[in-house]
């Protein structure tokens, strides 16, 4: 029997990036906020101190910081003719758990999406004709524009102290920045990171080909920074342990290093850890959420009533919680009817490795978002006429790490073990580099999420079922990007190169990216979207849903910048509109 607790103004379900942002903004507005997080408390000096943070086996290969499939996972299949089977161990993506969420173990690549990304459907049909978007490609406009989000991108970047170089300030193109980006109101809060050798070679080759490379916008600090909340971050030491690791040095923006030291001291905020929300309870009309049920580590159930319930968990969990709670109509991919679970998206990646005889790249001098980026082939920055696909991605020379279990590049044709393998690894480790492509995934009618009919989690709830594969659009686009990357690789004049295209069906096994999107998308019409332009549920207006859950399709950039901007955008709407007049902010 659930123990009923005194009511709160706001309950946040999950306490990572978006939970911390909403907590900070809504407590500032005077609301009493309770955050409920399934994982444990963790912080820099106790859980990933510099004295032991650089431990590849423990943190990546033994998954110390991530969601454990034993407690919760999902089932997966490439298409509806297959039986979905559980993802028994993590592979393709690494959802977080615990305070700070996946924002603890991200790389820190903090992009903005292009203005045209937010109007992908109308923009592409306008430029290339209605046939450019096939019937089963279920892309939509977002219902919010780049210009509307710009102040909130800015706010997130200044919270984090993002290191970068503007390419477009108020419409004026800036040398050295990304000339394709939407206009920004001011430059980044901190200058770009100091560039290491590999990205420098990459950028020089890209320039030779006429591209305009720019430093990747980075949440790894290029210098000491004090953010608007008064929280301090320290200069990055280029240790090469960002993605999959916590930063021991307060050099990577996360909830812990930018917000929590202020938020946790507030009287009107409370965090409950090791407490998993299992359901959002609705009243008899089904149009109002009254409470959440959660279970603590000992199995005790609680009911926490609240006026406003905000889903701040990882994208996959937000969608599953909506399905388990009956918020919004579940999506049926056969008929295309329904909204919750619709337009699941991912990203498509490939790489071109280059091997040198005489150039020491020293890959271990790295950082998560240390590199140079070419944006000529992202979004609609180039003419797609006759190419047979829409969308794009960036090509980058990142130098994220030299962690040897993960990163030991060998030339084409090297055996996978034995004396030849050993020699190839020894000869190439210090003198090789990788160019990567990072491409969009357009939504497709059959790429979707629903509840699995067979498998259950440790609490007895149905697992979510993911049905996903890359379509022709992704493969054509990724092949095109990879060919462009190979041109840059060739211009770097390596001894040899290895081109690895993404072929065949999507596999859940090899790590690709933790950029899962969609499933409760934002939009302008309740028939085709689960939440409105303020991330508010169309069906249950006192429920808001944060995160990349809202992305109608997945553009060619890393998502966190947009996740942060959308959280501030929604928080502002709650503060300035919803609190004055609780109810739907958009009339259906």
């Amino acid at each position, binding site marked *: 029997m659930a123990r009923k607790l005194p009511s709160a103004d706001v309950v946040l379900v999950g306490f990572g990036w978006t939970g911390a942002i909403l907590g900070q903004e809504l407590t500032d507005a005077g609301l009493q906020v309770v955050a409920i997080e399934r994982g444990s408390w963790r912080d820099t000096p106790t859980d990933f101190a510099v004295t032991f943070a*650089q431990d590849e086996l423990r943190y990546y290969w033994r998954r110390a910081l991530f969601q454990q499939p034993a407690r919760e996972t999902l089932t997966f299949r490439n298409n509806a003719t297959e039986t979905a089977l559980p993802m028994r161990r993590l592979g393709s993506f690494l959802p977080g758990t615990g305070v700070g969420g996946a924002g603890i173990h991200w790389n820190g690549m903090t992009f903005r999406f292009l203005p045209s990304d937010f109007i992908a459907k109308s923009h592409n049909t306008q430029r290339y004709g209605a046939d450019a978007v096939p019937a089963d490609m279920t892309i939509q406009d977002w219902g919010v524009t780049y210009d509307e989000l710009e102040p909130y991108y800015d706010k997130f970047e200044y919270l984090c102290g993002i290191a970068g170089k503007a390419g477009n300030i108020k419409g004026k193109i800036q040398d050295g920045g990304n000339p394709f980006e939407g206009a920004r109101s001011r430059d980044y809060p901190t200058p770009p990171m100091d560039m290491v050798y590999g990205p*420098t070679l990459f950028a020089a080759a890209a320039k030779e080909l006429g591209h305009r490379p720019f430093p990747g916008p980075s949440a790894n600090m290029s210098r000491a920074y004090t953010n608007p909340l008064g929280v301090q971050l320290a200069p990055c030491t280029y240790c090469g342990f960002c993605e999959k690791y916590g930063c021991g040095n307060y050099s990577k923006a996360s909830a812990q290093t930018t917000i929590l030291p202020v938020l946790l001291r507030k009287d009107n905020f409370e965090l409950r850890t090791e407490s998993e929300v299992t359901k959002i309870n609705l009243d008899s009309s089904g149009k109002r959420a009254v409470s959440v049920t959660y279970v603590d580590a000992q199995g005790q159930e609680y009911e926490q009533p609240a006026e406003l319930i905000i889903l701040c968990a990882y994208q996959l969990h937000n969608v599953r919680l909506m399905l388990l709670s009956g918020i919004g109509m579940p999506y049926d991919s056969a008929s295309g009817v329904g909204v919750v679970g619709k337009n699941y998206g991912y990203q498509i990646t490939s790489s071109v490795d280059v091997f040198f005889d005489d150039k020491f790249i020293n890959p271990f001098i790295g950082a998560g978002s240390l590199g140079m980026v070419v944006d000529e082939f992202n979004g609609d920055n180039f003419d797609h006429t006759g190419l047979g696909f829409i969308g794009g991605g960036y090509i980058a020379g990142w130098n994220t790490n030299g962690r040897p279990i993960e990163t030991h590049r060998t030339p084409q044709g090297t055996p996978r073990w034995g004396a030849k*393998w050993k020699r190839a690894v020894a000869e190439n480790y210090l003198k090789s580099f990788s160019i990567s492509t990072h491409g969009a995934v357009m939504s497709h009618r059959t790429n979707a999420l629903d509840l699995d009919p067979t498998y259950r989690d440790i609490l007895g709830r149905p697992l979510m079922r993911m049905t996903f594969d890359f379509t022709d659009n992704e493969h054509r686009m990724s092949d095109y990007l990879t060919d462009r990357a190979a041109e840059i690789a060739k211009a770097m004049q390596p001894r040899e190169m290895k081109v690895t295209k993404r072929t065949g069906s999507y596999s859940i096994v090899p790590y690709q990216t933790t950029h899962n999107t969609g499933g409760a998308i934002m939009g302008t019409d309740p028939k085709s979207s689960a939440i409105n332009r303020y991330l508010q549920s169309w069906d249950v207006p006192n429920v808001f849903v944060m995160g990349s859950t809202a992305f109608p399709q997945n553009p060619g950039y890393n998502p966190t910048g947009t996740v942060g901007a959308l959280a501030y955008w929604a928080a502002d709407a709650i503060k300035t509109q919803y609190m004055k007049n609780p109810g739907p902010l958009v009339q259906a």
Partner: protein
Amino acid sequence: MAPHNISRRNILSAGLAVGSASALAHLPSDAKTIAGEMPWAPGVANAPQSVTPGGYQFLSTNEAAFIDAAISRLIPEDELGPGAREAGVTTFIDRQLAGSFGAAETWYMQGPWGGGSKSQGYQTRLTPAQLYRAAIKAIDEHCHATFSGKSFAELQPEQQDQILTGLEKGEIKLKGAEAVTFFETFLQNTIEGFFSDPIYGGNREMVGWKLIGFPGARYDYRPYVAKHGEKLNLPPVGIKGRAEWTPRS
């Protein structure tokens, strides 16, 4: 909604992050309420635990002989330096199989079971410890039958390579274990043992890191960022310090 406060509970435990990685990471502890301040526990850290020295904790003598022989083929000792066996990878694998990894403690291990497509990944019901045990037994049986009574460890290096290649390609069928799944797990664990921090029993005296030039668990490379293209010759350090300080186990 009017702003209001509710009564606060201040339940903070100074010991919340004490303990070994394997103990803490996989067991839920008590739910906590955090309010009013940052939970700050000075001098307390969730530091990793080194493997304990001494004999094998999981592997039998025969199994250890198989591992010794097989990892000597996967990463052999040669003119470039020590191989996986010399680096202590057998001890590494033993301790991994004896611990949380061997028991698949963090994996989803509920049924129903059934093979799927390659895209769907690992679907065997065996834990890694069970997989090694079943596969090594079956491989030695295969070797006995094929090479007149000899175990894998007793074969010539070329014959051992032939067996390993047969497992890798799935051409050898094993009783009670899937050959490719075993081979992939084994190869991955061997590479892990060769390149992970020496506290886990492999990469003894940092021979894996020295082979390739990885400086190890260093935390500050700022003095080297601008040294474009230079060979740096930085000696490796581990979580417990320099290679010379590593006790022999």
